[in-house]
């Protein structure tokens, strides 16, 4: 069995060694702006004027258009490619979402999915804001599920803007696992 591109391969001892530590920091690829807000609303058929109309946002007490609070996650994702990165080849594994912890923590697993999420929102997302996501591994719980055997990795992501304000704190459980048919006997 080897790393198939669904997360960094390693032993459970290596996973445990990172418990309580900052796993990494990601800088959002894009600042908050109208185009990305519109595309995000479009996919959800979400019509709310504080996200699209400056005067409506001001009437609601904001300085200008605000992005939906749950867009903090989107604005914390780093680029999938940036200048200087190598060109992707057909034989390369698929690129994973560019946020730390989920795939950067070594574990003897080849697949993963998110299970439980808690989020507390803070400062609003204003046009021009640039987010940074600082991730910490705060829990490792081994478990066997219907899809396979592995562990829940609990991460704490703190999203801050360029003014140092916290816009969201997320606690997320990710189940990293090996499917039953692939599990070592």
């Amino acid at each position, binding site marked *: 069995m080897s790393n198939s591109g669904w997360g960094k391969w390693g032993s459970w001892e290596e996973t445990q060694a990172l418990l309580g530590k900052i796993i990494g920091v990601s800088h959002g690829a894009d600042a908050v702006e109208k185009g990305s807000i519109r595309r995000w609303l479009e996919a*959800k058929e979400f019509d709310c004027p504080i996200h699209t109309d400056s005067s409506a946002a001001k009437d609601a007490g904001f300085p200008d258009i605000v992005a939906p609070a*749950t867009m903090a996650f*989107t604005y914390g994702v780093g680029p999938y490619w940036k200048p200087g990165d190598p060109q992707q080849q057909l034989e390369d594994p698929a690129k994973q979402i560019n946020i730390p912890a989920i795939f950067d923590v070594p574990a003897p697993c080849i697949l993963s999915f998110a*299970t439980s999420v*808690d989020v507390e929102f803070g400062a609003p997302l204003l046009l021009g804001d640039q987010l940074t996501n600082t991730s910490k591994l705060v829990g490792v719980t081994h478990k066997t599920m219907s899809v396979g055997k592995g562990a829940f990795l609990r991460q704490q992501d703190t999203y801050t803007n360029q003014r140092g304000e916290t816009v969201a704190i997320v606690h997320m459980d990710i189940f990293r696992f090996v499917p039953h048919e692939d599990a070592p006997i």
Partner: protein
Amino acid sequence: MKDLLHQVYFEDVEVGTEVPPVSITLTLQRLVMEAGANRDLSLMHHDREAAIATGSPDAFANTFFIMGMIERTLREWMGSKGTLRKITSLRMTTFNCPGDVLSFGAKVIALEPDNIVRLEVWAESKKGKTVTAEASLRLPSTV
């Protein structure tokens, strides 16, 4: 565009108040659109073969989408001047896949100091409840 004058105030709400449901059809096109918009391009959210390898019957909606739909449901109810404070205990009990029609709903379960309203939130489809969560809002006051 939604009615700008619509606004729910803390005094309008009591335990048991129900939020009008918001439904949305899931298609592979929507999942692709959503992945591009929310930047979670993990294969299982738009590639059937990759999704099936994870144990899902098909590509499935990601957490970012579910959170966004919860925000939409609560925002459309409360109006422009409320604030989404928390979404907690978010769990997806099964995969939400193309062909599903998701209906998001919520019900007030507690009123707290500082005009905070706590709600039970869910999404359901022909499969039953597929998402459960709690949310916390701060609503404006009339006093």
